[in-house]
């Protein structure tokens, strides 16, 4: 048995590898977030996840739904005591992991299945859910965004998959000097001491960008493909409609959903959000950079 501690966006969590089959080599993207036990002792634990292939499904409970997340499927079931059982299948429909978590996701167990890459996928998926759903009532959200940094501020590009978030941020890297990519898919966003802040995470979609970095947020940019470039500030209502669906959240779970709404509200109160119709070219990023950095 081996215990590992990680600290992501100032939240500490523990992963216990309880069997001889799985170990931290399954999650290389978490490596830079690893902290030693001595350091971890000073922090409250966000959650503990036990990895153990020998544990078996509980009674399935009530089916909440089957949710598609970028090709993979999450079957979500809730038991009478409010605890959850989640079955995750990969893009090929193979079952990659089984997760059981208590109602507030502070304690979880996961059994992995299949090849190394399926296990890596399954464990990262389990960690993302544990993180997002345990931190949602602590002014923290896991967002679907590509994040670029310039002059010490982070800018988050939002939009459903395929809207060109990564293209837009990669064009910032290409055309705007002094920029770096903080995360390409799943950054953590928190409001700490009144400051909206974005953090790198061990989860970054298809781009290997796993960085232990943070920056105050300079702006959110909701992107839409168009045959021209045009940017404008969003209204409060538009901002809400952009930010909330970009957060990993369980709509049916009151604690999780209201906590996420609180964080989204705090973000809208502090950070400007923009809507941009754009082409994948230099003019677009010069426009978004000039507009957002001026604020």
């Amino acid at each position: 048995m081996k215990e590992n501690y990680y600290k992501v966006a100032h939240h500490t969590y523990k992963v216990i590898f309880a069997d001889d089959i799985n170990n931290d080599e399954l999650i290389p993207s978490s490596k830079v977030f690893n902290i030693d036990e001595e350091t971890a002792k000073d922090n409250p634990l966000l959650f503990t996840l036990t990895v153990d292939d020998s544990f078996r499904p509980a009674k399935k409970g009530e089916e909440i739904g089957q949710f598609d997340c970028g090709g993979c499927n999450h079957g979500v079931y809730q038991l009478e005591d409010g605890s959850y059982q989640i079955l995750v299948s990969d893009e090929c429909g193979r079952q990659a992991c089984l997760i059981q978590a208590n109602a507030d996701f502070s304690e979880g167990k996961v059994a992995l299945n299949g090849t190394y890459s399926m296990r890596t996928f399954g464990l990262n998926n389990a960690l993302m859910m544990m993180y997002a759903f345990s931190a949602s009532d602590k002014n923290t959200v896991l967002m679907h965004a590509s994040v670029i940094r310039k002059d010490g501020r982070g800018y988050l590009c939002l939009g459903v998959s395929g809207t060109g978030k990564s293209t837009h941020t990669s064009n910032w890297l290409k055309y705007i000097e002094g920029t770096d990519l903080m995360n390409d898919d799943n950054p953590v966003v928190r409001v700490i001491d009144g400051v909206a802040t974005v953090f790198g995470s061990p989860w970054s979609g298809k781009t290997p960008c796993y960085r232990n970095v943070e920056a105050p947020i300079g702006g959110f940019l909701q992107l839409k493909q168009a045959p021209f470039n045009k940017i404008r500030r969003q209204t409060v209502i538009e901002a809400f409609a952009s930010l909330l669906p970009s957060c990993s959240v369980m709509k049916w779970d009151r604690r999780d959903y209201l906590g996420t709404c609180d964080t989204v509200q705090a973000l809208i109160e502090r950070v400007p959000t923009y809507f941009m119709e754009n082409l994948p070219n230099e003019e677009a990023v010069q426009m978004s950079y000039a507009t957002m950095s001026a604020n």
Partner: protein
Amino acid sequence: MKIKKGFELRSICGENIIISLGKENINFTKVITLNETAACVWNAVIGTDFTVADGVKAITAEYEIDDATATADVEKLYQSWVDAGLAE
């Protein structure tokens, strides 16, 4: 009439936004806002089995408006709530 389960009114930067939650609303993706008057009625009737008279009472207590106009407005408002799937 009743507001359906899972709808809550929030004030965000001065806007009255209705959020939807719960198993019943997993596929409810609309963002609905209310103006001040509608929010006044909403707050008065939420959680109750209400009538047009309840809505009229709420706005005549808050605004200078005659009963006939208030009644017409409340009927229109209720219909918009039903059409949006907020009330039944």
